[in-house]
């Protein structure tokens, strides 16, 4: 009797494993294989994957959620090369597809601001063909995102493009204006697309704006401080909580330096941007949740130290001015 029961258990386990292996194998690697029920398996895999992701999102939402996340989407060309794609622009297209997915994840997780590094000013040093292809992708996809995306139409995502727009071709600028105009009133997540951007340009432009305001009499030179400078940066929103860079490179590449150096949690992921998965995202988020209390504590300690230092400075300057007055009298 026991033997029979065991046999039925083995049969069940074996059958289940076989069915699952068939569904997963056919659903995930269906393009390479031509087996029956390919579409159904793919649909089942997508469905289960989606549901699992939503469960994971629901679990993650029980902890603190970052307000602002930045992504350096690096590794599209290397991904194209690795995947034997014909041109690097295919890699950039795969990168854009991944971006829409990542935005969906961020939206599901309740992240309010996402900033992505789409094109650096020094990326104009690349070949004319590649820059042209990238500009084409930016033109078409921005318009598409603003017009047809569920993120915009259902969840009210707002698109903002940050950087030196004058360097872009006219048709890309038109797409940007269209996307920004169409999503201006949206109250959902804000997406800052940095294109073409460099953090040092952002800081120097902020300094220039401050000086302009002083020239125009809107501000006096004595009122200039870090807060005034920060208000004039191109990327608005709360402090950057997490900065993610893919492709295993360990540098900022002149992206959001002002925001990143203010205790943003930095994560360098050893995967190309099109390979970035929800697993990477969840891992980063869990790790940030564990570190967030420590980050807050250090930020607070820093703020206390700074205020003590500034009050001491003020006291010193007051006492020195007292001495000056005393000397004069």
């Amino acid at each position, binding site marked *: 009797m026991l033997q029979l029961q065991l046999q039925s258990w083995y049969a069940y386990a074996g059958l289940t494993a076989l069915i699952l292996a068939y569904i997963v194998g056919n659903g995930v690697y269906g393009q390479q294989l031509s087996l029956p029920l390919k579409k159904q398996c793919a649909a089942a895999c997508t469905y289960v994957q989606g549901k699992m992701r939503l469960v994971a999102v629901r679990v993650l939402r029980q902890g603190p959620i970052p307000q602002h996340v930045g992504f350096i989407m690096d590794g599209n060309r290397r991904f194209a090369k690795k995947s034997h794609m014909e041109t690097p622009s295919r890699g950039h297209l795969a990168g854009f597809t991944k971006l829409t997915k990542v935005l969906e994840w961020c939206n599901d997780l309740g992240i309010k601001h996402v900033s992505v590094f789409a094109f650096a000013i020094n990326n104009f040093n690349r070949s004319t063909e590649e820059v042209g292809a990238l500009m084409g992708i930016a033109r078409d996809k921005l318009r598409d995102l603003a017009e047809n995306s569920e993120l915009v139409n259902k969840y009210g995502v707002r698109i903002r493009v940050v950087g030196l727009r004058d360097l872009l071709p006219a048709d890309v600028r038109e797409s940007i204006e269209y996307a920004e105009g169409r999503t201006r009133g949206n109250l959902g997540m804000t997406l800052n697309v940095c294109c073409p951007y460099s953090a*040092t340009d952002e800081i*120097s432009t902020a300094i220039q704006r*401050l000086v302009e305001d002083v020239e125009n009499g809107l501000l006096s*030179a004595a009122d200039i*401080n870090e807060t005034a400078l920060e208000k004039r940066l191109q990327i608005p929103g709360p402090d950057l909580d997490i900065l993610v860079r893919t492709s295993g490179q360990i*540098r900022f590449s002149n992206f959001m330096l002002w925001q990143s150096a203010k205790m943003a949690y930095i994560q360098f992921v050893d995967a190309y941007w099109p390979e970035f998965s929800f697993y990477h995202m969840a891992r980063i988020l869990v790790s940030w949740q564990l*570190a967030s209390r420590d980050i807050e504590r250090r930020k607070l300690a820093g703020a206390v130290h700074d205020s003590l230092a500034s009050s001491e400075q003020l006291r010193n300057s007051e006492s020195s001015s007292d001495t000056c007055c005393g000397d004069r009298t």
Partner: protein
Amino acid sequence: MSAAVWLVTILLLAALAHVGGNGDQEITGKTLKRNAWQQLCDGLCALVLRAAHLAFTIHRSFQAWVQNSLSQAELDVQELLQGDDTEELTEKRQHLADFLQSLPQRPEHFAVILPEANECSQGGTMAFEVDAVETLCTCALLAKVPRLTVYTRNGSLKTSFDEIAYRLRKSSMTQRVTANGRMARICLDDGKHVEYSGGDDMDVDADLCIERPLSLHVSLWSRDNGYPALARLARELASQAECGRLPSGSIDESYVATKLVDAAGHQHPDLVLLYDDLVCIPDFPPWQLQNSEVFQVGSATARSLGNAVLSAFASYANIEKRFGK
């Protein structure tokens, strides 16, 4: 029996779909009132999250323990540098210097972010920082890196300037490293004071400093060199604009860059070592981070600061810089 197990599997999948579906509704903001079932689901999710946190913490501790165990077998750079001049140690030191100098790529400007005094595991306070600067100087001299910057957010290094200068003057570690048969000369600079050490004579006057090339320029930085410095620059430029001496249109990236070049005229750090368990940059001067490679080593996992520097140099050696291309 099999049918029962299948039924349980289907029920589990249905529950999964239900929880996922509820999550979706929650995201769209359609359901604001939460019923008992949803609250129960939330409770379960919170439990799962706590379990994930626990698992993550255990995994990280295990990783750190493995790292620590492995590093015990490594050569302790700190001990090697601090040890007496025995034949064996001298030979090992020479090997280390040869290794560092044979690296295909070395930074021109190396920066290290130290944990703040109350956070460093080595017992905190000034002693750790003074020791750290001495070790870093020795490593930089061995690797022939001409520029070293040591950063603490609160500026505690600057307040220990005299102690650091004294230590560098008396340091047997740095004095062992020679340049062209003469002792290495170090310039210590905190933005307000400059102190020279090394060489045959300890109190070298300014004229002599110009004549003899420096082996290493050490800067002590704090938060004040970053955000406040940028605000000060903006204020200075605005004052000039107020007087009509500077039109705002002439301010651009290259203009700001020229104003931010330090007195020594060095480039921004090529390599930044974050010697901290938390992967956050604690208000390091943002402008100076533009071309830096960042290497993080937890102070709890590295065997010593010297070993962390060695790992950072080894990692930097194989980095490919593309500058946007």
